[in-house]
């Protein structure tokens, strides 16, 4: 019986683990792997009562969102009592500390081309109510109805939040694209001038 459950759990990890880890990494940045492990351990503890054939992915993502919010809340609360400084703190305070050895870092930026990093940073800068549905849709491969279930919101609300999020992103990404084109054309003009 226990063996059967363990196998089901393993099958669940192999089938949905990547989507869940991807969501964790995008949601929690460099704490993403830890968040994923937390979620999986929680599921493992409750494997007797979870139906891994149905709906376990939605449940896992709900747990994931909950644990992440809880961690952030605890962190904020702790910071009020005993402020301390660390790399994570610096990032929270808005310092631009780049993850030079991060294995998830995208390709090097090229002029006039939107990089994946730029897109991700724009998405993560959105209010959570907009970014979370996007992550669930694109990173965790959830359908709108499943996202509604995970976030316990009506499908209509999810649709309107995704629409709003895309509108904001579209405007911001177009701005970056236009800046890129301007930079590129200035760059070309300079080369031409130098050649002359």
């Amino acid at each position, binding site marked *: 019986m226990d063996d059967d459950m363990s196998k089901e759990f393993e099958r669940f*990890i*192999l089938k949905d*683990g*990547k989507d*869940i*880890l*991807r969501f964790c*990494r*995008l949601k929690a940045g460099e704490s993403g792997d830890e968040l*994923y*492990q*937390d979620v*999986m*351990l*929680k599921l*493992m*503890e*409750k494997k007797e009562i979870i139906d891994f054939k149905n709906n376990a992915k939605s449940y896992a993502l*709900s*747990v994931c969102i*909950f*644990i992440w*919010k*809880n961690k952030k*809340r605890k962190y*904020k*609360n702790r910071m*009020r*009592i005993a*402020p*301390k*400084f660390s*790399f994570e703190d*610096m990032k929270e*305070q808005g*310092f*631009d*500390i*780049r*993850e*030079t*050895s*991060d294995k*998830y870092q*995208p390709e090097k930026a090229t002029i006039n081309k*939107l990089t*994946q990093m730029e*897109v*991700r940073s724009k*998405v993560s800068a959105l209010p959570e109510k907009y970014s979370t549905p*996007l992550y669930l849709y*694109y*990173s965790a*491969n959830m359908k709108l109805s499943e996202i509604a279930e995970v976030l316990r919101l009506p499908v209509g609300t999810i649709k309107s939040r995704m629409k709003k999020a*895309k509108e904001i*992103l*579209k405007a911001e*990404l*177009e701005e970056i*694209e236009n800046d890129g084109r301007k930079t590129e054309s200035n760059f070309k003009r300079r080369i031409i001038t130098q050649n002359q």
Partner: protein
Amino acid sequence: MTDEKLNQILKDALSPKISEEDIMIKRHYALNKKKKHKGLKIGAAAAAAVVLTISGIGVFNPALAAQIPIIGYTFQNMQDEVLYSGDYSEKAVILEESSDDTKTYSAESEGVEITASEVYCDGYSIFLAMDIKMNDRDLTNVTQHYIGEDEMSYGFYTQGVYTLNGGDEQYFPFNIDGNIIGNDTFAGMVKIDLNDKISGAQDLKINLTAVGFDDKTKLDQLGDSIDPTDWTEGNWNFDIPVAVDTSDVKVIRIDKKAEGSDLKLNEVVVSPYQVVVNMDVPMVENENIDEAVEQVMKDGNLTEEDKEEFIEAIKEYPMMINTLVYTQDGAPLQLANQYLDYAYFPVQNKDIEQLKIFVFGYDEDAEYDMQMIKEGINSPAAEKAILTAEVDVK
């Protein structure tokens, strides 16, 4: 940019490749968690045992459980059950909405009705009584937590922000102590420490975005997490007038400096429900900067160009201190919160005529403060305090 293109951009950026190896549960991680969890289980079991003991000897009051919360009586329902206990009936102002009132004392969202019922402010903290009524929820399993020696209180968690007179947003307190009334209502006291002295009329605006609690039947499974079903996200807004009431608030100037340090005891405030010790806590140099920088550089988390900014941010921190306060009889006051220059102690109905204050610096080899907590006011460790004062209150 077309919608299709945006869709493709988001798909590319938000679905990076994941390896098979990465999704496996890591053994070392699971073992570490298990170790932590064991401690939590013991804690939860101990708490459960205490809850049972209290119920067993009849301290639990069934009459109280049957009480229906009425506006203006929230403090009465929980004032003996909270850390800052006392009789609030004479000091707290009842918040009653009238038809021409523009203030908001009650809000409902996601089936949770929250009502701000009474408020008192001594100029240093705001004491706010709130009822949290959760429709269709049975709150009889809300966990109790320790608020001092042999004292326990029911607890709720909140998430949100507040502003005072349109100032900067501050985090709303995370923990609320209180009592369960009936099966579906939590009567709680929120204490907002202002970390500064205020006076006159104030406009307190609160925006809560979540409320929740620990269910004692789930503690063993969840450890330090809250079950998602016990955490409700919503939107509750309040606009509350707060009038500072300084009657029965005594402010005693001390102005005493510690020898060989910039640490200074400025004043002691004794109000009906708390003692506030205000100090100038100096910043001290961080002696481990090189180590910290080396570590983050080694981890690849800091670029050369950001190094200076990083060093600037960590070069000093507030001096670490611990403040112990005793009454004229040598009874200790419990340190509830020390934040920057302010330390807060609940009065808990003690009759205060004189206060004896001992401030200890941090010494990793000799924890004199801990020794004094253990041995009491006559401990020889008292001589190791870096700053002491005797304050006549009456």
